[in-house]
Structures are given as structure tokens and as C-alpha cells.
């Protein structure tokens, strides 16, 4: 009994302390707001927002509610984070491996890249890409096409718009391809365990993924129209490309800056992971006759990943949070749209800031959970 009490009392005290702190802040905020005649409530979320946003993944204009504006900002934040995470992972892995290259030039280029980009403040890099690099792009009317049908201009990157008919059939065909790939993979595993035969699983998977959707297109079940960007004149000297999709330069600059910056940290995680595997592992694998490719895939990577994943998760979280610097270059992310414009128009600082904080917290937790799940999956399983 005495022992249990001893355990509980400190916990109770901590709980009381936390509650007291929260209570103090709540009461303090309430008193101050009462004194200044500010009321508190989340009812404004349903009101018409009456401001427009430059770039949105869902249908939105000023006649929608503040809640919808919040969703627009959130989706834009997620978009830039996902793009950033994908690109920083690709660049990071390449650079991390390159830093261990036996080639002097490659090794040192990679090292210089890492040292340069991780030691310059991120906000400065964002400004550089937005105000210096992308500003040097030509005006729409002077732009030469890139890849034939896309145009990279100072007003944005114009790409063709794809108009699908019966898109759901295409979607099902892709789903079918993925399911058959899983089945084939299991079969190949069984085949190898029982008879020692190996199937070219990768080749089969890729061709399935290409052939099945392609078939739906060829047979005419799914139709695809491409709307190419067309130059349109707005005034004597001002042009844009209409009809296509315009990727705003703000998004390009932000993704570039975020992924180049975070990639340096990912590269260091990758390098640490690979260097953390003892040389003996590689030599032992070679001595049982595995090819260099198999050594990397079956021996080095599974072990290296265990070292790489946890610190890389932190980098993904940093990238997501750093994406809030978007406000500086007019990319309409959560901070600019919701904690910026919406906050100003409604004046509801406490409500909006609390929602924004909770949102970033949830985003970060979601990424952590996903990465922890992946980490657990690749961890050593005691049999």
C-alpha cells in the first residue's frame, strides 16, 4: 500500500500541476478577452470567407466557408510536404551513396553540396529560388517549350491538362495490376523457397502496371484528351498560357528549396546507415556468391535502413514544419491562408492559432506513426 502510494503521489502532483498551468492560461485568456470585449467561439468557421486563394486542389472561391478555406490551406501544405519528402528522399539517397563513391569527383561534389546547402538558412534559400532563380525565367511570350508541350515562365510552369473519360475503369485496371503483382510476388517467393527457382518479379510487375492500363486506353474503354497550353494575350504586353494547368512559381520555388535543403540531412542519414554496416557483412555475402546488386538489396540495405529510418523521420517532420515558411513567398499554405488571411478577416487569433497548432501536431504525429510502422516492419524479427 505504502509503495503504491509512493508511486501515485508524484504522478498526481504532476497531473495537478499540468492542469493548473492549463487552467491558469485559460482563465487568463478568458479574463483578458472579456475585458477587451472579444468573444470566443468556432462559429465563424461556417461563415462565408469572401476571399479568394491563388491555388487550390479542391474547388474553392470566396463564397465557400472559412472551414473550406482551412481545408484548401491544409491540402496545399500536405501537397508541398509530400512533394518535398519525395524529392528530398530521392536526392538524399543519391547524394548519400555518392558521398561514399570511390570516384574523387563524385564524392567531393556530393560533400560540397551537403556542406553548402545545409549551412545556408532555409528562408534565404527560399528567397533565392523565388526572387533570384525563378525571376530569371522568361515572360510567357518569349518562352521556348520544354519537353515540347510545357512552358516554364516567370508566371508559372504551364503543363497540359489531361481530360479523362471513364477514369474509373483506368483506376480499376491499375488496382487489378497491383493485386496481381502481390499474388505473383507471393508465388515467386514460394517457388524460390520450394524449388530454388527465381522469377523476374520486377520485370513482370512493371509490364503489368504498363500493359493493363494501356489496354483500357487502346480498346477505347477509357478516353484521354490532352488540352495543351495555348498562348493568350491579356493586354499589349501581357500574355499567359490558357487551357493547360498552371503550376505556380511559388510552389516550384518552395519544393525546390525544401527538398534541396532537407536532402542534405537525408544524405547524411543514408551515409551513416551504410557506413554503420560492418565490412564483414559485405565480404561474407560476396563469399557465398551473391552478386553486388543482391548484396546491396538483400544484405546491406535491410540492415542500413534500420539505422537510416529513425533520423530520416525527423527530417520529414522538419520539412513539413518548415513548409510554413511558404507565407514569405505567397504560396497559399495553411499558415498563409488560414493563420494569415482568415485570421485577419475574422480577428479570431486564439481560435485560429489553436486550430493551426493542432493541425501541424496531427500532421507530424501522422508522419511519425507511418514511419514508426515502417521501422517496425523492417526491424530485426526474433524468431
Amino acid at each position, binding site marked *: 500500500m505504502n509503495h503504491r502510494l509512493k508511486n501515485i503521489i508524484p504522478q498526481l502532483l504532476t497531473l495537478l500541476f499540468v492542469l493548473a498551468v492549463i487552467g491558469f492560461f485559460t482563465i487568463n485568456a478568458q479574463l483578458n*478577452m472579456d*475585458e*477587451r*470585449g*472579444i468573444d470566443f467561439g468556432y462559429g465563424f468557421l461556417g461563415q462565408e470567407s*469572401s*476571399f*479568394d*486563394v*491563388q491555388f487550390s486542389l479542391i474547388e474553392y*472561391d*470566396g463564397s465557400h466557408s472559412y472551414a473550406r478555406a482551412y481545408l484548401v490551406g491544409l491540402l496545399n501544405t500536405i501537397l508541398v510536404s509530400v512533394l518535398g519528402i519525395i524529392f528530398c528522399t530521392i536526392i538524399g539517397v543519391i547524394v548519400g551513396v555518392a558521398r561514399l563513391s570511390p570516384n574523387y569527383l563524385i564524392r567531393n561534389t556530393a560533400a560540397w553540396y551537403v556542406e553548402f546547402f545545409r549551412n545556408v538558412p532555409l528562408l534565404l534559400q527560399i528567397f533565392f529560388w523565388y*526572387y533570384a532563380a525563378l*525571376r530569371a525565367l522568361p*515572360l510567357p511570350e518569349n518562352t521556348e517549350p520544354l519537353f515540347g508541350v510545357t512552358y516554364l515562365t*516567370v*508566371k508559372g510552369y504551364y503543363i497540359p491538362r489531361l481530360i479523362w473519360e471513364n477514369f474509373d475503369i483506368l483506376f480499376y485496371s491499375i488496382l487489378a495490376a497491383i493485386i496481381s503483382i502481390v499474388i505473383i510476388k507471393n508465388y515467386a517467393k514460394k517457388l524460390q523457397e520450394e524449388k530454388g527457382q527465381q522469377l523476374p518479379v520486377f520485370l513482370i510487375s512493371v509490364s503489368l502496371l504498363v500493359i493493363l492500363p494501356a489496354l483500357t486506353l487502346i480498346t477505347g474503354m477509357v478516353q484521354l484528351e490532352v488540352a495543351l497550353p495555348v498562348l*493568350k494575350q*491579356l*493586354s*499589349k*504586353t*501581357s500574355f*499567359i498560357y*490558357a487551357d493547360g494547368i*498552371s503550376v*505556380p*512559381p*511559388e510552389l516550384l520555388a518552395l519544393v525546390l528549396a525544401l527538398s534541396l535543403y532537407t536532402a542534405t540531412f537525408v544524405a547524411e542519414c543514408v551515409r551513416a546507415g551504410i557506413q554503420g554496416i560492418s565490412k564483414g557483412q559485405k565480404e561474407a555475402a560476396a563469399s557465398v556468391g551473391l552478386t553486388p546488386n543482391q548484396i546491396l538489396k538483400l544484405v546491406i540495405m535491410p540492415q542500413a535502413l534500420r539505422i537510416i529510418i529513425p533520423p530520416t523521420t525527423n527530417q520529414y517532420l522538419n520539412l513539413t514544419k518548415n513548409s510554413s515558411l511558404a*507565407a*514569405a*513567398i*505567397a504560396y*497559399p499554405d495553411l499558415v*498563409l491562408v488560414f493563420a*494569415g*488571411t482568415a*485570421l*485577419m*478577416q*475574422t*480577428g*479570431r*487569433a486564439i481560435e485560429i492559432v489553436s486550430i493551426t497548432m493542432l493541425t501541424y501536431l496531427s500532421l507530424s504525429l501522422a508522419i511519425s506513426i507511418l514511419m514508426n510502422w515502417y521501422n517496425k516492419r523492417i526491424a530485426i524479427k526474433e524468431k
Partner: protein
Amino acid sequence: MRRTLKHLVYLLTSIALLVSFETGAFAAKKSKTLKKTQKMGFVRCGVSQGLPGFSNADASGNWTGVDVDLCRAVAAATLGDSGKVKFYPLSAKERFTALTSGEIDVLSRNTTWTLSRDADIGLTFVGVNFYDGQGFMVRKSSGITSTSQFKSGISACTNIGTTTELNMRDFFNSKGIKYEPVAFEKADEVVAAYDAGRCDTYTTDKSGLAAQRTKLSKPDDHIVLPETISKEPLGPVVRQGDSVWEDIVRWSLNVMIEAEEYGITSANADSMKSSENPAIKRLVGAEGELGAAFGLDNDWSLRIIKQVGNYGESYKRNIADTGILPDRGPNQLWTKGGILYVPPAR
């Protein structure tokens, strides 16, 4: 004996209560903000991060502008020295939070007076020191001379957190024009983006356009279109809940405007004490007890006029002589064809 004691206690308590009510009522008349300001020795004033003519700091950190002059007037009235102001440069987004949270006591930052701002978020607008309206700036080379030439697909740069964003939507919607709003947090970022060709037009209050135009790399290559799409009465703001402080700021502004009306300038203010006109005598503190109502001395308005000048002087010094808006337009006295009309100081 015991009874007497009880009575005595009752009597004393009621006296104590009465006295405390009395002093309480007296204290309430004195402004909390004024007391704090006088204790600190300076007025905490929120201004813009750099808008020539309104609030702009030079290389050595001296602030000038009509918005700045209002802060100086409040300092002259309450502290006796127009130099005792601490300026807080704020973005459009930060300004109201800075005021409601008590970081500043006056917000004089080309802020539009609207119903929702006045009623909703713990602010009180005390008056108008500049009548403005939203307009558009375009490149001369575009050949556009009127907003009727705008076409769908146009991109418009502006600031976030301003009435501009809302007016712009109303304007383009009513014309059925699809537009791309590019909204930045700081005015300097808007100027840089517009200058680089990111946007076809830059929209904000016309005075702002005229002022920001001077910051462009080639100001003469740009014009402000004639149309005005909104009413933007700009004025100083205080926190809700301190009505005496509110009155001090309101009448600091009114005194400047009324001084111009009666021809009192920083140069002739002292000699006006011997004027025949009682309205003038009241303004320079030679008659009446105007300051007492705020808990100020009687020379408060004289100090404003002597140290800061009247509204016309402030306008000329900051907006006309700098070439931003030489024509006073609506910001002229009602007696001279404008709409500046303030209640009498009496």
C-alpha cells in the same frame, strides 16, 4: 457598550465602502493606458513597415509620415514631447493582435475602418486621417488605361490580411473576370514580385500605390488606373475598453484638423493666444479647460500644434512635398471642397 461598538463598526464599514467607491469612480475617469504611458515615458505606436508618406523610417531610423505625426501628436499631448514615441513596425497581419494583446497602445498604420473590425475584434476606430480608395497599378507598356480592359487570367499582387483582398474579389466577380490573386505578407515582397513581372497588376489603396510606385526600379514605367473600387477610410485605432485614452487619441487628430481650419500653424500658435476668436483661443489653451476632461493639462492642444503642426502642414510635409499625392483630393478641409470635417473642440 457592545451595541455601540457594533454600530461603530457598521458606520466605519459604510464610510470605508463609500470612500472606496468614490475613489474608484475617480480612478475610472483617469485612463489606465494614459497612466501607463506617462509612467513609461513614451507612447507605444504601431506603424507600417515602410509606406512613404504615411509611416516610413529613413536610413538613420527617423520615422516620418502622416500616421507617424498622429503618434507624435499623442505624445505631445500626453507627455509634453512629440519625440517620446516608440514605433513598432507591423505587418498587416500582425497589427490587430499587437494592439489587442497590449504590445502597443495606438495603431496608426493606414488601417481601413470597417464595421467588422470596429465591432468584432476588440478594437475601436477613433477617426479618419486619410480618405482613400482601392485602385490598380499596371505597366504603361501594357496599353491598359482603364480597368475595363482587364481580361480573365490576369494575376494581381497584393498583401494578405487587408480589405484589399476582399474588395478585389468583389470587383473581379462583378465583372465576371477570372483572376489569380498572389498575396504576400509584406508590402516590400509585393513590390518585388510585381516589379519582376510575376503579376500584371498591383492592387492596394491608391495612396499606397502612389507611395509604393516610388520604390519600383523604374517608377515612370507604371501608372495608377483612374478607377477607385472601394471606400477606404484610413484612421488610427485603439484597444476597446479605455474610453478616456480613446478620446485623447481622437481629439489629438481632431485638434490637428481643426487647427488647420482656423489657420493655426506650428509657427503662429503662440501668437494666436491673443486672438479675438474664442474657438482659436480654446485650441491654443488660452481659454477653457479642455484638457481636464482627459486628465491632461490645458496646453495639450497647443503642444500638438506647436510640435507637430496642423493637418495641412503634416500633409504638405509628408505627402505633397514628397511627390506622392500632390493633390489633396477628398483630404481637403470641408471649407475648401474636401470632406475633412471634425466636431468642434469646445
